């Protein structure tokens, strides 16, 4: 037996030191200083690991663990679905302009933006803005800029709908 084989056998042993070594290995370890040291160190390592992680009796999982586990997973799923649903609804509302709800939301948002912007402008341009506009005028300008595309969109949508109705009537 050579050192490589001896060390491989020692490494694979479950608990070196706890059970006597096979005769051939034992003779090699007794004769070879390097393997003897390896054997001592491995024994020490095994004993340390055994002491650190020895569990006299691993408890059994408490009854109903799988049910609890599945309930938690389902709860996470529902939570996730709820969040996703809200997000999808919000995206739909914003992307499918103009729907009445989206138009209302956009108008409210536009008013809020306008108020915020004009308040900031009011601080900056207390007397007169660079364009000579006073805060209410700034507010109206911002509001107009935000609302105008929406109004145009709504008008176009209404016109489309009216067109389709006329076409239907004509075809009937």
């Amino acid at each position, binding site marked *: 037996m050579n050192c490589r084989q001896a060390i491989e056998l020692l490494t694979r042993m479950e608990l070196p030191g706890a059970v006597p070594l096979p005769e051939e290995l034992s003779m090699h370890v007794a004769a070879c200083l390097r393997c003897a040291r390896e054997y001592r160190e491995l*024994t*020490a*390592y095994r*004993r340390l690991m055994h002491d650190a992680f020895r*569990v006299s009796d691993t*408890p059994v999982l408490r009854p109903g*663990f*799988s049910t609890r586990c*599945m309930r938690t997973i389902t709860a996470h799923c529902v939570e996730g679905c709820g969040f996703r649903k809200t997000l999808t609804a919000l995206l739909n509302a914003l992307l499918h302009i103009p729907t009445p709800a989206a138009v209302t939301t956009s108008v409210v948002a536009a008013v809020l933006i306008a108020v915020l912007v004009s308040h900031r402008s009011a601080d900056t341009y207390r007397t007169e803005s660079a364009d000579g506009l006073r805060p209410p005028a700034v507010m109206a300008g911002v509001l107009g800029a935000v609302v105008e595309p929406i109004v145009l969109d709504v008008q176009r949508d209404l016109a489309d709908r009216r067109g389709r109705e006329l076409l239907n009537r004509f075809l009937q």
Partner: protein
Amino acid sequence: MNNERLPPFEQLVERYQQRLFDLVYRLFPDVDDAEDLVQEVFFRAWRAYDRFRNDADVYSWLYRITLNLCRERIRSRIAVRKLIAQDAPAPGDSADRCTAVTDPAEPAPGEHLEREELRRRVRDAIGRLPERFARVILLRDIAGMSYEEMARVLGISVTAAGVRLNRARAVLRKALAQELKEYL
């Protein structure tokens, strides 16, 4: 779900829960902690279950998730202790001096506490190992798996698993040199 042949997830939980719990409990011997961790393992597995390929080994896959989570948990505990240690009074403070004076009079700490401390130190050392080394140590030296089982979980050959284990043990033995002195 992409793959119709996959068994229902509840079956997986039923089949593997105790085996995973055994491994986790050895590292964190507190039933609540261990159960929480196993639950987290199944939750992570469930999130990826629809992407899971049926030709892969469910058992190995669940073990790999468990190993990752255990390592994460060890590392987060190390980080928390570091933070606490930063806030603790420096050595030489009055509180420390009081302890030093009263220590000899106090009874020696119990075996349970000593083992808990030893477990913590070894666990921390494993947590600091590179991931590939930590995995083999956890599977072989803590879960007590055979080389063949370990190779199966890691998806490598038995020889490669053996080589990796030897390297991992060498690094860990160096890290635990202080603790090992008492056993030599």
